[in-house]
Every structure is written in C-alpha cells, then in structure tokens.
C-alpha cells in the first residue's frame, strides 16, 4: 500500500508555479495549476538530470530549465523533443491546508 506523505502547505507554492519536494532519497515536483489544483510528478526531467522545479509552468505544461523539454504535468506526457519519455505522476490530495502526495 502506497503512503500518503505531506509535501507542503497549500500556500507554499504559488498559482501556476512549481516547487521541489525531497523525500526518502527521491525528488518530486509539486505543481499548482492556474485553476488552483495541485499535481505531483517526479522531480527530475526524463531527458537529463535537471530539477523541473527550476522550470517554468505555463497552463498545464512544465518546461525543463535545461533544454526546454516540455511535459504535461497533469498527465506526465512528454510534449516533444528533447524529451521523449513520459514523466511519472503521483496522486495528490489536499487535507487541512496541506498538500499530500501518494508515493509508491
């Protein structure tokens, strides 16, 4: 059974932005969409080891800071070169002002 882990407070991440969350030796990216929903993906780009949390969120896209590779952070789908491999996503819920993610 996967565990729910507290990643951050709801106000720790601005609208249409992303922050980094490290847990258990892994790194994740926590997103807040323009319509105020929260999402979580692996923290590193699948192309090369770059923290997506340093990238740019535009609508439902996260753009990697290193090579501008793009993913849909809601589905993890890679949106063209130089990224070809999809990003792992994780279930998210908000409880008592905290953003929780389910890590397998």
């Amino acid at each position, binding site marked *: 059974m996967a565990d729910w882990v507290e990643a951050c407070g709801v106000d720790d991440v601005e609208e249409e932005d992303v922050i980094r969350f490290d847990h258990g030796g892994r790194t994740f990216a926590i997103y807040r969409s323009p319509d105020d929903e929260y999402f979580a993906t692996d923290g590193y780009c699948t192309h090369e080891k770059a923290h997506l949390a*340093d*990238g*740019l969120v535009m609508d439902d896209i996260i753009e990697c*800071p*290193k090579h501008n590779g*793009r993913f849909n952070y809601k589905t993890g789908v890679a949106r063209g*070169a*130089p990224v*070809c491999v999809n990003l792992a996503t994780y279930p998210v819920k908000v409880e008592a002002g905290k953003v929780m993610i389910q890590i397998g």
Partner: protein
Amino acid sequence: MLRLAGRKSEVDVMEKKRDYSLVGESTRIAIETGLASAEWYHTDVPRKAMKELMQRSDGPAIRDTIIWIVAILGSAAGIAWFWGTWWVVPFLLVYGVLYGSSSDSRWHECGHGTAFRTRWMNDAVYQIASFMLMRNPVTWRWSHARHHTDTIIVGRDAEIAVMRPPDLLRAALAFTGVLDFRYSLPTLVRNAFGSISPDEKSFIPEMELHKVVTAARWHVAIYVAAIGLALYLWSFLPLVLIGLPRLYGSWHMVLTGLLQHIGLADNVTDHRLNTRTVYMNPISRFIYWNMNYHVEHHMFPMVPYHALPRLHELIKHDLPEPNPSMWHAYREVWPVLLKQLQYEDYFLKRELPPTARPYRDEFHALTVPAAAE
C-alpha cells in the same frame, strides 16, 4: 550554435591531443571524469525574479518576425527587379544577411521554444530557418541540446566551432560560407538517402532517426525544385534567392557566432569560463536576437531573447566584464589563437569582478595548465 564545416576526420584527431569526435577517447574521458552531463555553476537568482524573466510572450517575436519577413521579401523583390544591373548589389547584401545569418538566431531561439509563447509559431519559424540554414531540423535540435548539456566539453559537444589547435584558415573561410555549405549540403543529401553517421547517432535518440531522413528529403526536394526552376528559366535568380545566400550571407552569423566561445576554456563546468558576452550595435543585436548575451543565455536558456538584457543587468555582478564591442573581442582573441597554435592548452581566463563568486578551481582541475588573464 555555430559549427564550422563539420568534424575533423578520425585520422586528423588521432594525432592531436584533443579528440573532437563524439565517440572517441575524449568522449570516454569526459564520461569517466564526470565532465559529461555535469552540474554547472549558476549565479543565484531569486525564484520570483527568474520566473518573471522566463515568462513567454508572443508580442516581441511577432513584431520582430513581421519586420524580418517584410525585409526578406522586400530585398528579394529588389533583387528580382534589379537583376542584371549593379543596383542589385545592396539588395543582395541585405537579403543575404537576413537569409544566411539572421536565420541562425531565429533557428536558435525557436529551437529553444522561447521566442514565442505559442508553440506552433516557434515550430513554424524553426522549420523555415532550418531550411534557410541547410540544417536538418531534427539533427540540430538534438545537437543543440547536447551543446547546452556539455558546452565546450571535448568529445561531447557537437557544436564546437573552433577546435584546438585552431585552424585559422578554416575560421577565415567560414566567413565566406564555403566550408559550411560544403558540409551542410552533402550531409542533407546523405541523410535524405537514409544514412546517419555514428556521431549523429551518438546524440539523436533512435526513435527520432527516421525524422532526420524525412526532414532531409523535404529539404532536398525543395532544392531540386529550385534547381529545376533555374534551368527552366535559364537564370541563376532562383538559386540566388534559395540556397546560395547560405554562401554570400552567412558572414554576420560567423562574425557574431565565433565570439561565443572562441579562445576561452574547454572542459570546464562554469559558463563564465567558456562563454563570452559582447556588447553589440542594435542592428547586429536584431540580426542576432540578443545572443550577444551569451553567458546569460547558457546559464539560463529558459529566458527569452527579449529578456536577456534584463537578465544581464541582474547578474552582471557575477560575470566577467563583457567585451565592449566585437572589435574589442576579436582583438582580445587573436593573440590567444596565435598562442594556441604552439600550445593548444592555452586559453583566455577572464577576470571576475570583486562582487562575483570566484571560479571553483577544484571543479576545473582537469583543464588548464596555462591561462591568460
């Protein structure tokens, strides 16, 4: 983003200290020592400021692209109108630079996806500019990703313009476009026939290789059509407008592009050591789309060209003093190149201002025995 006339042959490089092939001894060393895909130095910029700088907008690029297209079509019309008279010369100069040089910066910015906010606009200009440059749009997207991962790492970077020891004749000929033309056209034809070189395979994922061939076939088909039209009209005019500007108009791309990294360190992980920012006149900056702020671009490739001057103001305290002009930069580089002819490890180590964080020598111990400061 500038590469001169392909790579040296394996026979060439075996006799040299640096092996610039992408599947050779330098590649092995770069991977084993951690120089490949390394973590690079970045100036600290608050997230809020960086987020603001990274913001995309269609406005500036649409404005610049309209000016660009109007100027291209206008100068092309001038060439056609004055064809056969000396009045054609100024139109050739303008058209050549717009076609053969400014396409490089459009290719570059749209390849990064930063010029426009709207994706299809980036993709459309990227494809057009790739064609103008005789660059395979797939190959070069991947080679440029590698250039940003491993900037001037020997054996890894596919876009090192001037290798060491420098071939000054080759660098001088680059201004004519002849060498690049001689490399680009056969490469397109080779790709069109389905042949991908080992170097290309080293940075293009297997799942993308078929796209290399398809893109090359489209380019070759357009060139064949242009040649057919020239024969039909029995006139050089179609070729002067399509293809040949890569020869007579690429001098400005080389003039600005050579300065990006020439004479500076290789095999380091700090863009302040291997990349140069040069102040330029407004016309060159329009042609070059602000890529004269090249340290800034390499440190933060997410920042669009129109925001680079603002980024420069924000982080210049941590960077070497920019060269005040292209002339100044070339005067600085020339003696370094001459010394590299004798001693290829020699490079220019640019001084940091007192406000900057110092170079991390422990990260750069692999380079370096002799630096000019």
